[in-house]
């Protein structure tokens, strides 16, 4: 029995040591120098560049991102638009933006009526806890949007090279 206790004692000590080193590693990125960030104003102007003076309505677009992200270097993202894809009426393009990466754009996707379904998936980088915005442009010229808040614990883009 006593040997059992000792074993569990060692593994607990190791666990605590491991936790200690992990905590130390997670404080490192704070020390590194970070470049200028995109600001919510840059996000607004990037969206203005896309839509011009058109009115952007909320709805139709769905953005699937995990609400809590551990590693901002690869974040799975799926964007879809609830709209039929016919020759008369279809989703022309989907644009994804962020609020606080160094640059406001994430990706633009250009679709055609034969897509059948307006849905695209990819993996993105997020440099901070922030808002991600997706805007869909339909063939009739209208714009629809959605925004999602994502919490990121390990930032991407700005870390030092080894």
């Amino acid at each position, binding site marked *: 029995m006593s040997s059992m206790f000792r074993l569990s004692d060692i593994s607990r000590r190791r666990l605590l040591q491991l936790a200690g080193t992990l905590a130390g590693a997670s404080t490192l990125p704070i020390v590194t120098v970070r470049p200028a960030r995109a600001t919510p104003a840059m996000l607004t102007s990037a969206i203005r560049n896309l839509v011009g003076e058109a009115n952007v309505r909320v709805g139709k677009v769905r953005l699937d991102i995990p609400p809590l992200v551990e590693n901002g270097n690869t974040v799975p993202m799926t964007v879809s638009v609830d709209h039929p894809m016919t020759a008369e009426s279809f989703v022309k393009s989907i644009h994804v933006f*962020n609020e606080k990466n160094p640059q406001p754009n*994430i990706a633009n996707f250009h679709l055609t009526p*034969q*897509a059948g379904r307006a849905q695209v998936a990819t993996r993105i980088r997020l440099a901070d806890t922030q808002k991600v915005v997706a805007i869909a442009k339909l063939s009739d010229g209208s714009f629809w949007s959605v925004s999602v808040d994502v919490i990121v614990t390990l930032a991407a883009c700005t870390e030092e090279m080894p």
Partner: protein
Amino acid sequence: MAAALVNVPAKAKRGAVIEIKTLMSHVMEPGYRHTAAGEVVPRDIVTSFTCKFNGAEIFRADLFPAIAANPFLSFFTTASESGRFEFEWIGDNGFVANASAAITVE
């Protein structure tokens, strides 16, 4: 070097909506990182992806540094006829990669 992985169903029923998945091995260096010496690591990303079916463009994506390394893309298309999908990735420093896949529609 450039290695592409594409996943297209080999067969599909006419009119079915099929999913196409692509993966390109690429560092996607965002151009915002610094070395320990303080120098900026220059940007090296894939900027554009195009998918054509029998010569006609069916999907295009403009990519930015916010796309993760080894860019993965999944999208949909309607199987209308048998033919060949052609994929092209274009990036910084003259990066070009191609792949293709055939589909039989019945």
